[in-house]
């Protein structure tokens, strides 16, 4: 598909994000806001965590480890490992947006704004956009879903105490389900196997050790899923 004309990429990115992408992130972060309220997290810390961490798996890890009373080192290791999947996401997204021949601070800024929702949009739509407009388009897109997410987190935090208990507890279910479904969107056998093995191994190993269980469980289940799913036999694309 040839790139379409785009005289105002910021406005276009904002418009594109306002539908399902913003609503999805709003809903997902409502669950996070509700969860942090129930564990008694300070609202400013909750807001700062959304903006600074801006990754649902890492946010969930932050909330879980903080609720469990984990210290600085446990938190650093847990969030680093929970956020590892951002590395391939950033690695695959930036080359599709970058127009300069070298790395700049703009790459780090876009990487910080990147979410799985934006990543999918970059992979699917970037080639339909004129190259010079892509960065501004996706910055506007990412910033819009981030603002929607912040509003969702505040809404979840503020209303969860006012809601009937059956609804408030069901809201805590929203974020983990949303993330499991996002992972299921990546259609590859090795990915499905890794998810299934991680789902069994991680909770058991984290009962033994929060820090080591997370690291060993993720590495072990991911590696087993990769091997069983034929990752070693697959040829790299030329």
């Amino acid at each position: 598909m040839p790139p379409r004309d785009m005289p105002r990429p910021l406005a276009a990115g904002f418009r594109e994000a306002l539908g399902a992408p913003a609503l999805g992130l709003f809903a997902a972060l409502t669950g996070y806001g509700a969860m942090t309220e129930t564990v008694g997290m300070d609202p400013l810390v909750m807001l700062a965590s959304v903006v600074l961490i801006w990754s649902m798996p890492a946010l969930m890890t932050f909330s879980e480890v903080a609720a469990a009373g984990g210290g600085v080192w446990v938190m650093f290791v847990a969030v680093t490992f929970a956020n590892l999947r951002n590395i391939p996401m950033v690695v695959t997204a930036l080359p599709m947006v970058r127009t300069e021949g070298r790395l700049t601070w703009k790459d780090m800024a876009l990487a910080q704004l990147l979410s799985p929702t934006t990543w999918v949009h970059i992979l699917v739509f970037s080639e339909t956009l004129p190259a010079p407009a892509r960065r501004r388009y996706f910055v506007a897109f990412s910033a819009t879903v981030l603002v929607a997410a912040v509003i969702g987190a505040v809404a979840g935090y503020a209303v969860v105490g006012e809601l009937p208990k059956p609804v408030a507890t069901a809201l805590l279910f929203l974020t983990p389900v949303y993330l499991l479904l996002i992972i299921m969107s990546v259609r590859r056998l090795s990915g499905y196997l890794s998810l299934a093995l991680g789902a069994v191994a991680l909770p058991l190993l984290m009962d033994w050790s929060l820090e080591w269980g997370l690291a060993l469980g993720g590495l072990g289940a991911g590696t087993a899923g990769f091997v069983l799913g034929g990752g070693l036999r697959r040829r790299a694309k030329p």
Partner: protein
Amino acid sequence: MTAGGLWIVLLAAFAGAFLTRGAGVLISGQVEPETRVFEWFTCVGQALVGGLMVRAIFWPPTPLAETLAADRALALAAAFAVFFLAGRRLLPSTLAGVGLLAALNFARAL
């Protein structure tokens, strides 16, 4: 944990998140993503996130633990069923699972 302690662990979490994004930026200029090592990276990420989410659903440190595990399993199955039957659409699938759990919670409270 005190408020000050929470801000410090938040900074540790930010450092971890920033480190992974920074690593992605540095690698992005040099490495072809469609390789075995990146498939492995993705698998490890999926195992980690999947495990954490299953733990958050079935061994939650929140009031979600007050609901029946069987109800949570049923709601999760409903979300997956809608996801696969309705063209892998995230929002309706998620809301189907959450809606069913809320309905089951109401029914148990009667």
